[in-house]
């Protein structure tokens, strides 16, 4: 019961805070005071209470797209275990459903962008679909390597066993964290893959897909994207929280790591510029390379005598 409560509170607030921290870090870095930490929550409430402007060319796909997208991310969040609290739902093979339900959301997000018949939104949709083709296999290689290392087929089993094995998992863990951080930047549409603050449609990916979305639908999409970042950050935190801590300590450490991840995203965003669109695939391929490195080191260690 307690676990469920923690997860629901997290799902409710963490995404807004996560975005708030990113923006605060960027503001401080740039010498500004920055918006309140919960600014995106206020935006969410405001958007939820608005009416809508919809394009006359759209069909029902455009109307259900954002909702399905959010639904997919929500289910993925419920499948993600929280350190110290566990997952609302976890089973052998849950990581498959996790990745595929996010894929379902993406499918609808792409279609609702194409439904407007806008060339900008088509451009964003095309980029989103293309970059996913690199991210997804890398994610599966990474999780597959962790399955191989721990002998468990569920998120919970993997994370509980991973840090308890021996010293060498530190290497695997840190490589995996880096790999997942790249996934967070890509899936969360952050610099250097995408710039959420850009004003030029031609250089956007995620923002351009929602040009025609307004009101509650836009609120759903913004919240879902933030939640997606929190979900990936949760997976990252799992790799860093040591085992055998009392539940309250691991949850506390987890929250601190979540904030630190948000800070790291903000720092990256302050330090480097968005990559040229044609260089983005190379950046994401780094994730694939890292995933294969994880696999190689797991294979090396598990076959050797360590």
């Amino acid at each position, binding site marked *: 019961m307690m676990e469920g409560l923690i997860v629901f509170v997290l799902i409710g607030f963490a995404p807004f805070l996560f975005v708030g921290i990113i923006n605060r870090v960027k503001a401080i870095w740039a010498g500004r005071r920055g918006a309140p930490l919960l600014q995106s929550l206020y935006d969410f409430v405001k958007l939820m209470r*608005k*009416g*809508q*402007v*919809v*394009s*006359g*060319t759209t*069909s029902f*796909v455009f109307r*259900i797209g954002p*909702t*399905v997208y959010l*639904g*997919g991310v929500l*289910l993925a969040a*419920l499948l993600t275990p929280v350190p110290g609290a566990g997952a609302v*739902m976890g*089973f*052998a*093979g*849950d990581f*498959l*459903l996790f990745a*595929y*339900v996010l*894929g*379902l959301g993406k*499918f609808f997000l*792409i*279609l609702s962008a*194409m*439904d*407007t*018949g*806008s*060339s*900008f939104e*088509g*451009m964003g*949709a*095309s980029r989103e*679909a*293309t970059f*996913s*083709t690199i991210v*997804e*296999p890398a994610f*599966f290689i990474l999780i*597959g390597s962790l*399955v*191989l290392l721990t002998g468990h*087929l569920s998120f919970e089993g993997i994370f509980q066993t991973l840090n308890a094995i021996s010293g060498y998992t530190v290497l695997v863990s840190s490589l995996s964290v880096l790999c997942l951080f790249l996934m967070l930047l890509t899936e969360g549409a952050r610099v250097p893959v995408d710039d959420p603050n850009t004003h030029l449609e031609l250089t956007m990916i995620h923002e351009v897909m929602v040009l*025609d979305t307004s*009101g*509650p639908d836009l609120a*759903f999409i913004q919240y879902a994207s933030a939640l997606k970042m929190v979900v990936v950050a949760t997976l990252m935190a799992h790799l860093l929280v040591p085992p055998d801590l009392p539940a309250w300590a691991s949850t506390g450490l987890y929250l601190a790591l979540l904030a630190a991840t948000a800070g790291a995203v903000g720092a990256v965003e302050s330090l480097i510029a968005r990559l040229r669109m044609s260089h983005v*695939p190379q950046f994401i391929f780094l994730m694939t390379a890292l995933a294969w490195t994880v696999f190689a080191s797991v*294979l090396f260690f598990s*076959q050797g005598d360590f």
Partner: protein
Amino acid sequence: MTLVLAGLGLVFSGGALAALAKGNAGRLISTITTLASFLLLLPPIYSVLTGGETRQMVLQWSEPAGMVRFVIDPLAAFFMFIIALGGWLSAFYSMDYMRAYREDAQGLSAYYFFLHLLIASMLVLVIVQNAFVFLVAWELMSLASFFLVSFENGKEEVRKAGLYYLVAMQAGAAFLIAAFAFMSFKAGSMDFARFSEVFHQDAGLSLWMFLLFFVGFGAKAGFFPLHTWLPLAHPAAPSPVSAILSGVMIKTGIYGLLRILLLMGPPEKGLAMMVFLVSLVSGLFGVMNAIAQRDIKKLLAYSSIENIGIIGMGIGLGMLGQAYGQPGLTVLGFSGALLHVFNHFTFKSVLFYGAGVVYARVHTRNIEDLGGLIRFMPWTATLFLIASLAISGLPALNGFVGEFALYYGMATGLLSASPGVILLSLVGIAGLAFIGVMAVLCFTNVFGVSFLGVNRRPFAHAPGEASGWMLLPMGLLSVLIVLIGLYPPITFPFLQQVVGSLAGEAAPALRTELGVLYAPVVRAIGLFALILLGLFLLRSWMLRNKRIAVFKTWDCGYQAPGSRFQYTASSFAAPFLSLTRAVLPVTRRLLRPQGLFPEDASFESRPRDLADVVLFSPLLGLLRKFFGLFTWIQSGKTQRYILYGLVFLLLVIIWIVGGG
């Protein structure tokens, strides 16, 4: 068995009757007889699949066939169901679709005759246990489908595609004939049961025989690099035929492989690895090429190659499990393969029927000319969307169900003790994920460009919705897609016997195993449905009595956007294709604008098939060159031909006199 014979007879005689009938009667006869035979076949199929006794019938025939056994075992029953259902649905769909060709009475007669012949021959070949009759049925199937593919033989491209198809099928059949002939020579009988003994006696022989069978059946199924006929034959055929070719006929190649596996027993490790890797390459290659296509039916044909690859990965996984003695892998591999055989039949048929509706209403297969069709044909669009989601393997639809078994199987393969299996499993997981996400790209592209947005070219007349005759088969299959996706366990009673026979495991144990595996998935999908319901309620509650203004799409302040401004399928796929240039050869023809007042400039790009460019074109070129050496024989002068005859006679006489 009586029911089966009656069903078979009905299909065959129905075809003959429909061919002879005048006017509309033919179409009606065809629909009724295929439905009746489907219903007649259902009870035996149901009973065999759910654990009833296998039905058998033995005929004594003259040489070379000898004893001919017709056996309905679970494997045969599984494929019979797909054939009979697919046959009926295509006949039903043809009711309206083929009306466009009603002037061509002769062509239509032939169409119905060969459609029924195709269904009947497929039914025979899955139940017969005799090499001779099997090959006869196999050839009948190839011939019948050749005539169906060349239905519109007035068109040059159709004739070409038909001939290519025929040659490819005969080349594949040559391998099968060789393999079967050798096997029956060794076994001293044409009966499959005797083959099994030969396989078990001689391991070296079974290796080579399996390779021959794999090439022969693989050419039919469409494994890389033997797939080149699919993207030619499917667009040429009328849509109900494409649906039956892709949904049903190519699966007979899968049936053949499984049948040989059943006879052969646990395979060599190397064979299992080969099947797995060839399938993985087929899957990747198929979907990559599908992304590059503009012709909707060509795209679907490449996607069939992809799905055959996924099915083959399941078979390969099952074989790996057998070879390495890991029953869990075997069960999951074969379950995944068979689930995907059925699932692919459902969604690929819907997609081809949908493409047929588009072709019948808009008269083009080029998706670049389409757009906004969802407003003209909302039902077709919705069903096409459901099938697109399913074929991308997304959850809550049946495509995910089969792929889940495969992923799970490969994940357990990671826990194996053998490094080979570990490596293959990880490569397989990454590969299947890559295939899945490329399918998302491919099908968001085809659905988004053809059905969403606005039409890119003016339609000659507003395209109407599909008729009930066309919607019913699509709707029926979509119900199956959703049902299996929401509640996978409904398939287990029909799966347990056939997977059990392949994996050599008791059916009840297998069913419990699958039940345990899928129970949490069912719960999670239920939860997902609840979440979606909640969100939709929240959304409509928030939007109640709010102003919803309808305006045009944001155009960046530009005031005169045209429908040609939309993103095209080519540009949607371009970023991805630029990453995969190495394996996707594209011919580009660019005419640059010249001078101060350029008059014409054009750009054309045409995706080409790597297997064709690297393998078949050079090979066929060499063959042509070789046979070119003998063209002087064909002089066209009658006197010379008479001379050839005389020389030949002379040689024969010398041979008889000298030798005898």
